[in-house]
Every structure is written in C-alpha cells, then in structure tokens.
C-alpha cells in the first residue's frame, strides 16, 4: 500500500462507456463491429443434465449406440437432407469470410456429413465444390441470387433475420468489397455496402407463403426450404413460418455473430438463444408440428454440452458460426502484433468488419488470407465438430438415450432462477419452474 486511496470507477460510467461516448463525440457515427453479443446472458451454461443412476439406466460409452442423424425437409421437399450429425455450419458470406475459410468450412462439413450455408453475396464455385451439402440463402439484398445456384444447392434458406440484428439489414464495409465481391454483388468496388432489412418483393406471412411457393416451383419441389428468423418474437415467427409452408426453421438467438453490425444492435436487440428456443418449441407443439418441422437453433453454441442441452429442450439440430471460426483460428494468439495494430488482442478481437483479420479468416487481403492453410483449417473444424458430437453423445448416453433426439426437457435442471424461467425447466433441487 502506498497510502493513496484506491481508484473508484462509476458503475454507470465504467471506462468502456466513457471511451464509447468520447469515440462517438469524435466520429459522429455508431460503432460497427463483428463477432456477437459480448454482454453476459443466461445461456446453456446455466443448465445441467440429469445423468442416469438407479431410477434410469445409462448406456455404455463406446459400445452401445447413440445415434445422431437427423432428416431436414421431409415435410414438402422431394429430396430432404439427411444430416449425419445435428450440428450444421451457419450462413456466413463470401465477403465477410475469405474464400479459403469458406472452403475449409465446406470440407469439414462434408467430412462430417453435415451442411454448410452460403451468405449475403451468393454462392462461390469453391464452396459448392467443397460442400457436399450446401444450403443456399435467399436474403433481402438478393446479392448474387440466381436460378442456377438455386438449382445446384441442396436446400434453400429464406433469411428473414439474423440473431445479431433482428430487424436490421446487412453491412459490408468498403475495405472488404474487392473486385470479385463487388462483381458477385453487382456493386461498385470499395463502397460501404448496406443491404435491405426487408425482402424487396414480400412482407409478412401471407406473401411469404407465395414466395415459398415460387421457390418450390422454380426448383420443382425438390429442395427443402428453410426460413431463418432472428430471436425476437419466436412464438409468432415460428408459427407463421410453419403456416407459410417452411420445411424447417432456423432460429438465431441474440448471441449469434455477425461480420459487421452496429454494436448498439448486437448488444440490445433480440432475446438470448435459451428463452427463444423454449418459445419456439412450445409454438411448434401448439401446432402439433414439433419434430415434424425441424427446428435448427443457433447463437452461442460452443460445445457438445450446448448441443445436448439444446436438443433436450426440443431443437432438432444446432448451427454454429462463431465457434466454427474460432476452430478455424479466429482469436488464436498468433500474429499478435497485427492484433495490436487493430487496437485489440487475441481473445478480444471483434474486428471482422475491418477486413484485416490477423488469422486470415474475415478478410479479402490475399496476404492475410494466405495465413490460413486450408487443409489444416478444415481438419481443425472437422476435429471440433467431431468433438462436439462425441461430447453430446457422452452426455446423452449418460442419460440413457440411444439417440440424441430422445433427450427431453425433463433431463435438465437449471442452476439459476433466470435460466429456469427462460428455459422452462425446474430450478435444480426443486420442482419449481418460475412462472408456472
């Protein structure tokens, strides 16, 4: 102790708030950044699984099977998708990500028997080639949308919203709009691209139903059609997606990542994945459509534990974006000087929007992109997916399940009152579900 009083920081104006006010005062515009919500949120971490003992019997770890397959699109599509694992790779654009990163994700997903997804900007030949099962997004911007790619994809995802920004449109800042990306999007190179928040030719479920009919007609009713919504009012959105004729629903919670969005949007709009999932499952059950219209949930999924808990709550599969990028190398402590040049450090980097990704993932700079070795990167994502599935199986077997889908909400307990209320499972040690 040197005798000086300890510094006392304001709770209302902590250093980061002071910095943000002064940054806004200097620049006059909101902060745009990548990554997902950084604030603390109730999550799957607040739930635990109830393993078997005497009242229930567990399955042996390696010898007794715990199946992981899931079929998506059997409602209307002639060619449903058969996933070997209930973990898919979420939509991330070529533009936000480098071609190498997209290829690595595709190869990993192919090796694991699951899907990758295009993004705002269209489909590249590289990702089609790398991905044996590719979901093609139809977004409000319609960048790169064309009938050839619609026919050569394996499923179509009509994107209504993204968990990082429910109600907002896409962004890609000029640094990342190279000639190739500008060409795919039919935009001038180097401009700050803002894409639309609503589709240009439909608004609302009645018109969405007609849009889905058109997409089915163009593809001769072969492809599963997903509807992706951001978690804000999932009860309504899920039911309206079903009524509009979706084969599957993708629900993206507020922890979902982004390549570039206003920070104020990322941190303040939407609801976390946990309560969104419960509302969505209840909405499907009300329509007697649970397990009939598959529900794929995303936003902050990081481990096999998250997979097991999400499936126990009623999801049919999960989708990962940020976690897959981290498996690729995002935020790895290499090229530390480049992180410093961005004003950040490994572990805290969210500078996808700059295009100066130190590890060559969220960039269009050839020199940076070369830092990502595609074979090694694909292997890492494959290893990560494999680990997630092994973890989920381990947990499911401990609960006596021979298929991941047989996990139930009753296999869960909550560690906090908040999580109990949001997930609709009892607080551990009680039979109390707040609000019921």
């Amino acid at each position, binding site marked *: 102790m040197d005798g000086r009083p300890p510094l006392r920081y304001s709770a209302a104006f902590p250093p980061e708030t002071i910095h943000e006010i002064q940054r806004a005062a200097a620049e006059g515009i909101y902060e745009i950044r990548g990554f997902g919500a950084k604030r603390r949120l109730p999550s799957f971490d607040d739930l635990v699984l109830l393993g078997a003992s005497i009242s229930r019997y567990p399955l042996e770890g390696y010898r007794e099977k715990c199946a992981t397959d899931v079929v998506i699109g059997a409602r209307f599509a002639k060619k449903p998708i058969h996933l070997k694992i209930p973990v898919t790779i979420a939509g991330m654009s070529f533009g936000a990500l480098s071609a190498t990163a997209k290829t690595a994700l595709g190869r990993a997903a192919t090796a694991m028997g699951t899907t990758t997804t295009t993004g705002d900007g269209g489909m590249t030949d590289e990702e089609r080639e790398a991905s044996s099962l590719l979901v093609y997004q139809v977004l409000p911007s319609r960048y790169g949308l064309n009938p050839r790619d619609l026919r050569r994809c394996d499923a179509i995802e009509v994107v209504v919203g993204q968990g990082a920004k429910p109600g907002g449109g896409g962004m890609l800042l000029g640094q990342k709009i190279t000639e190739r990306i500008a060409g795919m999007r039919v935009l001038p190179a180097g401009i700050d691209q803002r894409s639309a928040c609503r589709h240009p030719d439909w*608004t*609302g*479920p*009645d018109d969405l*139903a007609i849009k889905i009919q058109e997409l089915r007609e163009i593809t001769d009713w072969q492809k599963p059609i997903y509807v992706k919504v951001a978690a804000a009012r999932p009860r309504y959105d899920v039911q309206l997606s079903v*009524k509009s004729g979706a084969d599957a629903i993708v629900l993206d919670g507020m922890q979902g990542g982004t390549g570039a969005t206003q920070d104020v949007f990322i941190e303040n709009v939407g609801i976390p994945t946990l309560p969104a999932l419960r509302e969505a499952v209840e909405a499907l059950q009300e329509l007697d459509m649970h397990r009939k219209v598959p529900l794929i949930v995303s936003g902050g999924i990081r481990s096999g534990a998250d997979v097991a808990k999400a499936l126990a709550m009623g999801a049919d599969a999960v989708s990962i974006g940020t976690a897959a990028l981290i498996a690729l190398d995002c935020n790895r402590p290499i090229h530390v000087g480049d992180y410093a040049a961005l004003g950040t450090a490994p572990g805290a980097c969210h500078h996808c929007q700059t295009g100066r990704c130190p590890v060559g993932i969220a960039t269009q700079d050839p020199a940076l992109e070369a830092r990502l070795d595609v074979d090694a990167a694909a292997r890492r994502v494959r290893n990560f997916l494999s680990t997630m599935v092994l973890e989920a199986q381990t947990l499911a077997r401990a609960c006596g399940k021979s298929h991941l889908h047989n996990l139930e909400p009753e296999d869960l307990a909550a560690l906090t009152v908040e999580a109990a209320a949001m997930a609709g499972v009892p607080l551990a040690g009680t039979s109390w579900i707040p609000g019921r």
Partner: protein
Amino acid sequence: MCGIVGLFLKNAALRPDLGRLLARMLVEMGDRGPDSAGFAVYRRPAPEGSVKMTLFHPDPAHDWAGLAAGFALALECSASAERRGSHAVLTASVEEAPARAWIAARHAEVRVMGFGRRIEVFKDMGGPEEVARRFDLAGMDGTHALGHTRMATESAVTTEHSHPFAVGSELCLVHNGSLSNHNRLRRNLARAGIRFDTDNDSEVAAGYFAHRLQQGDSLADAMRAGLDDLDGFYTFAVGTRDGFAVLRDPVACKPAILAETDDWVAMGSEWKAIAPLPGAAGARVWEPEPATVYAWGAA
C-alpha cells in the same frame, strides 16, 4: 396478415347475387388467411328509428328468441332475432344506444359484431369456404359487402379476433398488415371510453376510427388522421352505409387492387379475388396509392 375483398354493386340487378359473388371472392383468398374468415353484408335496411345488431354467443344453441323477447319487454319495443349459424341478427324498433346498452348490461357474454340499419357481420374460425357455408353467405342479397380471411400474426385465433371489426354505426373494418404501436394506442383509447374485446391490432384501428367519428370527424378525415397515429403496415378497407373506403400506409407493402366496371366496384388483396366477378376481364384495374383515402359512397 390476410386477404381482403370488397364488392359494391352499381347494377341493382346483381343484388340478389351479392353473397354468392362475395363468397367466390373470399374463397380465392383462402391461402392468404386459413385461420378464420368473416364478412359484412349491407342489406335489407331496418326501418327508420330501428336498429339491426348482429350478435354472437359461443353456445351454438343459444336462445336468441328468448333474448329478443326479453329485449322487447325491457325496452318496450318490437324485437325479433333471426339465427344465422352461431350468430343472430336482432332487429328492433329502438335507437342504437339503448339497444347496445341493454345487451352489454344484460348479456355480457354476447358480442355485438356489427350494428346499424343495414350492416350484418358474420365471422368465425376456419377457412373461407367453410365459414361462408356455415352462414349461408351465398344466399344473402345486398348492395355491398366486405370480406376477410385471416392469417393470425400475434393474437389468438378465435371468433372474436376475426375480422371485420365493428367501427361505429353501419361501419366495419378489415385489415391486412401488422400495426406496430397498437398497444399504447389501445390503452389511450380505452381511457377515452372505447371498449375492446380482444388484444388484436386491427381492433385498435377499428376503435381508433370509431373514436374519431365520435369526436365528429368524417370517415375520410378519420382515416387521414390515422396516417399519423397508426404506425406499421396496413391496407384497410372500411365498409360504410353505402360503399366502402380503402387506405394503405405510406410504405404500402401490403397488396391492394381496385377494379371497376359499369356494374360494380371491387377491391381485393390480389387479382384472383376479383377474377371470378362477371365482366372482370374487361374491368378498369388499378392499385390504390399509398397514404391516400379512396371512398365510394358517403365517406
């Protein structure tokens, strides 16, 4: 989120066919609104000084004759009730205000779906074909009619949540779209004495217009004021004593088509609602401009 149809007959010779024509229009909008359907038909005016009220009770066997007898006795007037599906049209030789007050006081479980001298309003859960059959829409004559098929967005699927909503005497409203500020507006209107039966956004629009009319606005003025006060997306159609009025929000994403021949004026969310009408192929067809009130008859 829904389908809207409207038909105003200029040629009196078509009046016996009004219900049959509207039913065909309504069925075409079934895909847009599979949850429930409803319609308002303007027909057979009650004599001056009398009122027609369309009433609904959840019990399909409700004793409407008994209600009419009690009504006549209490208000010292003549009153008769004609059952039509789960609804009944009560015609009585009294003014509107005491008639509605008596129903509200003595039969709180009975909903007044519409009131005036001409208007009759029927609505129920189910697709338009089924709902039209339940109420024998095809057998109804009249001068003009509005219809609605509903795909519920946020509020429940019930008979009460179905459209049309009564706005005021001889007035009803149907809506395609979704309002974004209806909750606060409902609270403000409730404080001003407007009664709401549901949490439905469209009912708030109906209540808003009813309130403006009570304050002395013409319907057209009320609708223009709505452009400032009702936020969100909408195509509204309002049935009036002798026509109907149409308004789209300033962004105008929700569809609307108007068509006119020498025999009729029709409105629909899509052309296929209008296509079954006689002479439709040769009709003058256009789309209402955003933020513009269109009205036929005395709006």
